[in-house]
């Protein structure tokens, strides 16, 4: 009830009291008619309020359905509502307390219009607590000159969709800490690091020293900090040597050899050993496993760091996964329809790919790399290459690294980074691609 209606109610109460005390029918008539008017307005408001609520439809979409804690994502909500004349409404998104609104409006005024009108919310949120989260609907506030009502529309048709928030996010330090012989990884290890990789609920047996008291007090539930793990595994160094039969930049090769030597030396000094894989295209030239002697390592580098003859060549070789992706793409094109010529070509190409796929075997190089990764205790590797010629073997290296859960860092000459990298798909799935100094 708004101020105007409250004043009218006061007048009614005064008139009724006066009529009762003075036994005056005139005062009662005035009170009765006022009461009749106010009650009628209330019933009318209730009727219109219900019609507004029943006219509401909500369509909400999230930019992603699964994010990491601390990631900002965009939310778009379309609300269609019919507000009759002389009524005013306001719609507010009911967001979970687990998220923070970064920008955009979550409240919109709705103007009276006898026809359905669609309003759109656009805002960005950042989940600060991991777990399953659901936008719990909208809040509708309706008022006219006498009354106002608010209702939380949280049933199934107004709420959702679900957002799964994975741990790790804003509590995670931006850069991984490294010491002389170890570095932090986002895995549970016996030796724990200093960074927090996740927060989770307390389970019996957890170390009480790991309880996050501030978060626990906020949510009235015990939360445990999961710390990052510490590893002291040296990275695998992969050197991709150029082919002798094609031109290559001599200066870049010299610089690459220098950087590889420096890295191998650092690895031996920090981690006591280094593993070195020398390849040239899809040919494995040499593999040094956990070499501890610095002198020996340097002599090996001096022996092998020059252009070699390639026995096997790959030229834009596709692997089975890529062929399957091509087939799926062509099937989508055929299903969508269109120009008969394009459809015929797509169908022919699809049949060709399908027939090739049946007889396709994984290249020997892929198997050799997979066996190399599986035999080493590593979690990251550095690939040094001059980026000359075909890069199919690099793509296969990255794929095998992903399968083995090994981070792949690619180091290329600066000129290649600036010229070829943007359009080259082979490098894009690596964890980092940088120029070697």
């Amino acid at each position, binding site marked *: 009830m708004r*101020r*105007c209606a409250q*004043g*009218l109610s006061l*007048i009614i109460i005064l*008139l*009724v009291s006066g*009529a*009762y005390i003075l*036994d*005056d*029918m*005139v*005062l*009662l*008539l*005035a*009170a*009765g*008619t*006022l*009461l*009749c*008017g106010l*009650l*009628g307005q*209330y*019933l*009318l408001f*209730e009727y219109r309020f*219900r019609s507004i*609520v029943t006219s509401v439809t909500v369509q909400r979409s999230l930019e992603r359905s699964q994010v990491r804690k601390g990631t900002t994502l965009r939310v778009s909500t379309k609300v269609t509502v019919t507000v009759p*004349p*002389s009524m005013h409404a306001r719609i507010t998104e009911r967001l979970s307390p687990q998220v923070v609104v970064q920008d955009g409006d979550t409240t919109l005024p709705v103007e009276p219009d006898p026809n359905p009108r669609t309003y759109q919310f656009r805002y960005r949120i950042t989940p600060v607590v991991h777990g399953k989260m659901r936008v*719990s609907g909208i809040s509708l506030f309706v008022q*006219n*000159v*006498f009354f106002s009502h608010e*209702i*939380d*529309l*949280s*049933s*199934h048709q*107004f*709420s959702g969709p679900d957002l799964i928030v994975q741990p790790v996010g804003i509590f995670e330090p931006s850069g991984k800490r490294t010491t002389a012989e170890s570095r932090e990884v986002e895995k549970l290890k016996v030796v724990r690091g200093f960074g927090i990789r996740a927060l989770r609920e307390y389970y019996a047996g957890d170390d009480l020293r790991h309880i996050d008291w501030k978060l626990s007090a906020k949510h009235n539930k015990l939360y445990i900090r999961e710390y990052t793990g510490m590893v002291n595994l040296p990275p695998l160094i992969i050197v991709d040597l150029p082919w002798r039969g094609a031109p290559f930049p001599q200066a870049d090769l010299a610089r690459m050899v220098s950087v590889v030597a420096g890295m191998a030396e650092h690895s031996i000094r920090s981690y006591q050993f280094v593993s070195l894989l020398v390849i040239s295209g899809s040919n494995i030239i040499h593999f040094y496993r956990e070499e501890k002697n610095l002198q020996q390592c340097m002599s090996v580098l001096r022996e092998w760091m020059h252009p070699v003859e390639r026995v096997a060549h790959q030229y834009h070789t596709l692997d089975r996964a890529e062929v399957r992706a091509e087939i799926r793409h062509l099937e989508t094109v055929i299903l969508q329809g269109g120009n008969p010529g394009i459809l015929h070509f797509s169908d022919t190409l699809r049949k060709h790919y399908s027939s090739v796929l049946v007889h396709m075997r994984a290249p020997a190089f892929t198997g050799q790399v997979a066996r190399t990764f599986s035999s080493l205790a590593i979690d990251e590797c550095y690939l040094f290459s001059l980026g000359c010629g075909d890069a199919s073997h690099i793509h296969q290296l990255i794929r095998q690294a992903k399968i083995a859960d090994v981070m792949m860092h690619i180091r290329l000459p600066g000129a290649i980074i600036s010229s070829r990298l943007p359009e080259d798909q082979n490098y894009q799935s690596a964890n980092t691609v940088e120029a070697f100094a």
Partner: protein
Amino acid sequence: MKQIQRDYVFLAVLAAVVFGVTAWGGLPIWYLNLILLCLFGGIFYAVRSWHDRAFYLACAGVPLIIACCVMSTWMGLVSVWMVAGIVCNAMGILEISDDIRIFILFCGATVPVALVVQVSNHVVLPLLIFVAGTAVILAVQAVRDHQFRKQYGAHP
């Protein structure tokens, strides 16, 4: 018909009722009705841009209605309709045909109220009827409102 024209119509009819009742009653304090009419007109003019003008107009209109009802219940009822029309017009809730229909419904609903008052000798019985009726309506509305909120506010 524009809002201002409706205001003039309601005010003219109200003035006619007040003048008629005053002339027909022949009371020694006949000028009181005219003073109340002028007061209502003055307040109507003064509060035309105020936010809660319905309340002030009701406050100004109630003495005038009482004065008319003292002379005649049915003339008082007509004055109620006119004051209600002015208040509704001032609040902008007499713009569309639906609103006018609702206003006519209100006028019809006040007739039984006046009839109850007319046939009763004392306040207690009609007062009980009004209070009981209001209580029943509010109770039913409360239950409906609860069910409505439950339907739309329930979690799946």
